[in-house]
């Protein structure tokens, strides 16, 4: 064993972690090499003299308090990060997947991307300019539409343009409070 290697093995030797074979060759080297032997002895006395510092551990009930405050910290962390323990990107990925499925379904049903007359992609048809102007005039004119009415009119205009583009089925809803058939009072879907 050379000095360089011996000095690297000394700490493991001092802490009793050197395999017997290596320990034997180190001891042989130390007998031959006074420099390494001195090094080893001085480090041995250092290791034996640095006593363990006394740690002041919490006692008995203090550990209960420790656990209590840890639970409080966990609760606070849950509020901050949300209860879901799934990685944050997962819901976003699921939403993106669902949207992609809808887009692909539309693509498959229509036999290609819906296009406007100019041949551009028109996945989000806007209401016609005439319709927007009409709603704006009604809003500021005699009818004086409220904000809510204005938004309803705009939504209706958007629906009309979606219908015209064939992207929205013209659905008829049944009479009465049909939602009761599907949801309980607590809003939980019925089986």
């Amino acid at each position: 064993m050379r000095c360089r290697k011996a000095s690297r093995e000394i700490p493991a030797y001092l802490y009793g972690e050197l395999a017997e074979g290596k320990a034997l060759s180190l001891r042989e080297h130390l007998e031959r090499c006074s420099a390494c032997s001195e090094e080893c002895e001085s480090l041995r006395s250092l290791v034996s003299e640095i006593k363990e510092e006394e740690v002041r551990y919490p006692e008995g009930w203090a550990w209960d308090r420790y656990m209590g405050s840890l639970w409080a910290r966990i609760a606070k962390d849950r509020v901050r990060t949300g209860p879901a323990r799934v990685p944050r990107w997962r819901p976003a990925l699921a939403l993106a997947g669902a949207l992609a499925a809808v887009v692909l379904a539309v693509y498959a049903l229509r036999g290609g991307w819906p296009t406007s007359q100019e041949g551009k992609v028109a996945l989000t048809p806007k209401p016609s300019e005439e319709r927007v102007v009409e709603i704006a005039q009604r809003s500021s004119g005699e009818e004086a539409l409220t904000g809510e009415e204005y938004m309803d009119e705009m939504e209706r205009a958007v629906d009309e343009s979606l219908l015209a583009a064939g992207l929205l089925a013209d659905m008829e809803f049944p009479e009465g409070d049909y939602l009761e058939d599907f949801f309980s009072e607590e809003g939980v879907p019925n089986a």
Partner: protein
Amino acid sequence: MEDENELIRRFQRGEERAFEEIVAMHRERVYGLAYRWTGNAEDALDLSQEAFLRLFRILPRWKPRAKLSTWLHRVVVNLAIDLSRRASRRRSIPLSEIREQGREAKMNVVSPGPGPRECAAGGEILERVRAAVDRLPERQRAVFVLRHYQGLSMREIAEALRCSVGCVKAHLFHALRRLRRELDPLQLGGKM
């Protein structure tokens, strides 16, 4: 005491109380390491709780490939290093003082402080030892504390610090040499 993996499985099945048993299993080692690094109970409590909070976050996805204790040691060391860095950033030292310290260090390898006579009281010697350990470079300090105070094997330290056993041996050797250089003038003689 129940097997650690069984406790983890119970926790993963939704039994959060199993977490308390896991904490009870590791709290003394985790707190002890934090205390030895920070040197005060307040920071040790904060640091060890932060480590357990991180464990709580990761436990639902925990795969029993590594030992919890190894992982916890790594987290505490990293948190402690972060804490030390933040503390040293807060302590702004004027450049002139740094230059002066550098000049003194060149003239005298031993850092300034009370001499052997002043350090006769055991408490003061402990303080000097602590200060010398604190001054070790981060990796050397981590290896020394984990081996000397926490009693981890070199293989366990290598796993905790994600390095080779050879690297641990080298860090430990340099840490010991440095400590000897700093503490020699104290003529320890069993007082540490």
